[in-house]
């Protein structure tokens, strides 16, 4: 395809040769023509055999929402009308800067006065075996779309490698075209460059709801097939069948031509503010350039670059100053917007709005009274408004309180005071959408004595479900009562308006399954929580979903992540389990060997009848555990919010006062309850007679043996506020004692707040409540016990053995070692 106007001898104008018939090259020519249509004679070389089209609209073409004709920017008539020669389908393969000529693959040579390189970018192909098999393609041009459409006609399975913007658009199109699509994404969150964890989670949910399979944290090992692609194999061994594989893992500036010509090239072709390369006769524009250290892979910067370029070409230079970019996912029905920097940091303030019922997540990041970033999911109507404020660096302090509600709210009628905005609402305005409560109902409920948020939630139910109207209710309380508002129960932390009990109740009621889901559905005000709420949520989910919930290691306190106790010097102490406080020569020898082998400076007998080995380096922990495991010992959980120790006295087997086999019972109870995660640490003791040598009456669960059976005591602890136990009941047999113990542990696990020990919990709920649940209600007790045993069937897995075998080695080994002397040597 060639349009070559006859060159007249009279045409002595400078010749501008453009390499690249894409969006950047043609836009630059358009800008030039708009300024001075007669100044240059123009020739454009394009690698693709077609006219200039809008590459970013390939996704709608794939999805069947547009045709190729719809996305053509400049048709053949435009080239002809402007006297532009188009050489399409014969790409330039060499530049001779000394002779000022370019040469095409077909052998044609053209001389230039000014050369513009607009070669764009190349898709990055990950170097795995099978990458060259037929059926493995990128998603870059119309030929790729044609290949995908042909594959979709045949039906079957497609795999898209890369869960970024382009990959998800490809997956969406293929899915609409009837293929069964699996997206493989290396990172834990989709579109992690544009979206934060919360928005990424919502997006994943939505795409899965549309029938796509999304595998995050999945690393491609190879593409398999005999003569054509047949599937993708992951590093974990999973094989996913596929007749089509689309690689959309990223793009790289296309710089080979420029580099071969000896131009200055960094990550892209280096240009100045006027898009001039290291050779003053050669310019470059678009995705192939590097300006001020930045490389852009989005369309918006092109427009600014092309303006500056054209200004320079007509000798009225203005200069390009870099671009701030925003992105929008073109998947119909899923609205995602992101702009600027959303990584937070110092002085940055997050304003977060979550509306679970509408599936909306909005986050605006403000620094020094200016918007620096925005992430919107579900409602992107205000994306352009935020982006505008961001680009103009406008002071938003006056809008601050209403900013997150969007432009119509924030700039409406100067009502910049949220209280004034609430005051201005009519009595029949709906405050709580979940429970259909109007402003009038909330105000009358406050007037009748509900003087706290909790009281309002308890009476008229406003803000009792998703909590998104909490701010409105608080403003109504303040308006109605002034200073008489009573503080509600303590919230879990500053990230939420809900207390622990509310969060736990909703986790179960709404069957929530992950931390990001809880944060979204309960309107967390921070993107990824804090060091208070994350461990609590992790525990609540673990407790609610035994065997199903995957523990989030990064939401664990250090001791539970390292399975040892951190000491003030950064070393760890290690306590192997000794069932019921019993030990033997093999275990003692193994402990002695570990102490010597790893130079542990101290060994200490603990209050819970164990041996504590001090001063172990984190790198040595797996080796220490391997040695202890070899002698039959497992983790003592001395580090956890978990069952710590069962302390015993010697009992009837040896002691002249002993009434029952307290050591034997202690061992059985420890075998039953070890490994269980709890709201806080949990200690048990069994004493063989009322002399109580095992100090059972200051333990969370204590058994005191008597001639006629077993006294069961609960809710004791030592510590700052010593509390003796309450007597729960007396039982006749060992089995009953164990059953009551299991039921009590489970009640505590399910109902106490995170970091609340049994003593304050029982003082809060009353020992009568505990007796009613454990002693009086036999069926309830049995159900609690059964739930505990189910949970235990998943948690009695020695974490030391897993680590000793190499699991999660990154927790122990340093990433690198730096030895300055050797480097110098």
């Amino acid at each position, binding site marked *: 395809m060639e349009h070559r106007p006859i060159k007249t001898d009279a045409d002595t104008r400078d010749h501008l040769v453009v390499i690249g018939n894409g969006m950047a090259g043609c836009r630059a020519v358009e800008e030039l023509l708009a300024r001075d249509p007669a100044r240059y004679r123009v020739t454009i070389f394009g690698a693709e055999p077609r006219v200039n089209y809008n590459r970013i609209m390939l996704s709608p073409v794939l999805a069947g929402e547009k045709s190729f004709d719809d996305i053509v920017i400049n048709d053949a008539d435009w080239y002809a009308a402007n006297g532009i020669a188009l050489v399409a389908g014969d790409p330039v393969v060499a530049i001779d800067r000394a002779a000022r000529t370019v040469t095409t693959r077909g052998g044609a040579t053209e001389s230039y006065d000014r050369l513009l390189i607009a070669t764009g970018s190349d898709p990055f192909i990950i170097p795995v075996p099978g990458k060259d098999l037929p059926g493995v393609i990128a998603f870059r041009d119309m030929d790729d779309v044609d290949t995908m459409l042909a594959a979709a006609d045949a039906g079957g399975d497609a795999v898209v490698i890369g869960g970024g913007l382009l990959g998800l658009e490809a997956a969406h199109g293929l899915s609409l075209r009837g293929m069964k699509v699996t997206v493989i994404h290396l990172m834990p969150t989709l579109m992690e*460059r544009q979206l934060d964890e919360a928005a990424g989670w919502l997006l994943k949910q939505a795409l899965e709801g549309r029938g796509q399979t999304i595998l995050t944290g999945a690393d491609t090992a190879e593409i398999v097939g005999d003569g054509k692609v047949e599937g993708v194999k992951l590093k974990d061994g999973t094989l996913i069948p596929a007749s089509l594989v689309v690689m959309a893992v990223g793009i790289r500036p296309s710089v080979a031509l420029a580099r071969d010509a000896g131009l200055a090239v960094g990550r892209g072709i280096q240009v100045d503010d006027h898009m001039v390369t290291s050779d003053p006769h050669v310019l470059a524009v678009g995705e192939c350039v590097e300006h001020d250290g930045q490389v852009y892979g989005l369309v918006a910067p092109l427009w600014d670059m092309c303006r500056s370029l054209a200004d320079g070409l007509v000798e009225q230079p203005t200069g390009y100053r870099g671009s701030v970019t925003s992105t929008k996912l073109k998947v119909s029905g899923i609205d995602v917007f992101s702009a600027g920097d959303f990584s937070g940091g110092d002085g940055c303030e997050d304003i977060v709005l979550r509306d679970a019922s509408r599936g909306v997540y909005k986050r605006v990041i403000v620094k020094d009274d200016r918007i620096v970033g925005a992430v919107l999911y579900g409602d992107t109507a205000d994306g352009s408004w935020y982006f505008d404020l961001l680009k103009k660096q406008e002071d938003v302090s006056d809008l601050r309180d209403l900013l997150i509600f969007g432009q119509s709210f924030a700039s409406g009628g100067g009502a910049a005071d949220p209280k004034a905005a609430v005051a201005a609402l009519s009595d029949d305005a709906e405050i709580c959408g979940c429970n259909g409560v109007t402003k009038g109902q909330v105000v009358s409920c406050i007037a009748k004595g509900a003087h706290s948020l909790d009281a309002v939630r308890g009476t008229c139910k406003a803000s009792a479900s998703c909590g998104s109207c909490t701010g409105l209710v608080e403003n109504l309380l303040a308006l109605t009562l002034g200073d008489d508002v009573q503080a509600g129960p303590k919230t879990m932390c500053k990230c939420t308006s809900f207390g622990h009990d509310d969060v736990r109740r909703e986790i179960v009621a709404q069957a929530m399954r992950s931390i990001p889901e809880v944060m979204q559905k309960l309107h967390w005000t921070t993107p*990824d929580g804090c060091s208070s709420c994350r461990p609590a949520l992790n525990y609540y989910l673990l407790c609610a979903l035994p065997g199903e919930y995957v523990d989030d290691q990064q939401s664990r306190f250090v001791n539970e992540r390292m399975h040892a106790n951190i000491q*003030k010097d*950064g070393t760890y102490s290690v306590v192997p389990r000794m069932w019921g406080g019993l030990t033997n020569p093999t275990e003692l020898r193994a402990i002695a060997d570990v102490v010597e082998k790893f130079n542990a400076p101290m060994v200490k007998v603990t209050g819970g009848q164990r041996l504590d080995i001090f001063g172990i380096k984190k790198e040595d922990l797996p080796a220490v555990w391997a040695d202890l495991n070899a002698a039959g010992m497992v983790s003592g959980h001395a580090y956890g919010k978990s069952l710590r120790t069962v302390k015993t006295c010697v009992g009837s087997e040896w002691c002249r006062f002993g009434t029952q086999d307290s050591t034997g019972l202690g061992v059985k109870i420890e075998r039953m309850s070890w490994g269980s995660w709890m709201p806080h640490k949990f200690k048990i003791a069994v004493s063989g007679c009322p002399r109580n040598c095992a100090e059972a009456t200051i333990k969370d669960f204590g058994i005191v043996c008597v001639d006629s059976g077993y006294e069961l005591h609960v809710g004791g602890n030592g510590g700052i506020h010593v509390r003796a136990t309450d007597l729960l009941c007396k039982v006749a047999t060992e089995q009953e004692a164990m059953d009551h113990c299991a039921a009590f542990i489970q009640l505590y696990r399910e109902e106490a707040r995170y970091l609340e020990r049994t003593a304050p919990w029982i003082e809060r709920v009353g020992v009568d409540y505990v007796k009613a649940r454990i002693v009086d209600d036999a069926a309830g007790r049995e159900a609690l016990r059964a739930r505990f045993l189910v949970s235990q069937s998943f948690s009695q897995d020695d974490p030391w053995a897993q680590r000793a075998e190499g699991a999660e080695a990154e927790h122990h080994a340093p990433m690198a070692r*730096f030895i*300055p002397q050797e480097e110098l040597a």
Partner: protein
Amino acid sequence: MTTPEWLDIGWVDQIPVRGSRTVQVEGGDDIAVFRTAEGKIFALLDRCPHKHGRLSQGIVHGGAVACPLHNWRISLSTGEALGEDKGCTPTVPVKIDAGRVLICRASTLKAAA
């Protein structure tokens, strides 16, 4: 090959998201390298300004880490203690190149000394 000013310490993916790894410096303190939920990488001396707790062992949230010893919150970008607490941990400039994490050699030596 590492350029003289920057030390190549490994792949970004080697650091857990919302987690940390350490770089041992012979004859000095460790450097802690963090990766936030947003994928940003920061490097700090692995020592809380309060009682010298190992920041690498703390919980990473937002752009901060909570020290494992007494829960001081330290900004990953400036090393300053946040909230009511006062103190500062030396930071080490980081750059990412083609998925590799590079830390500033001079700052590493100065911080670890």
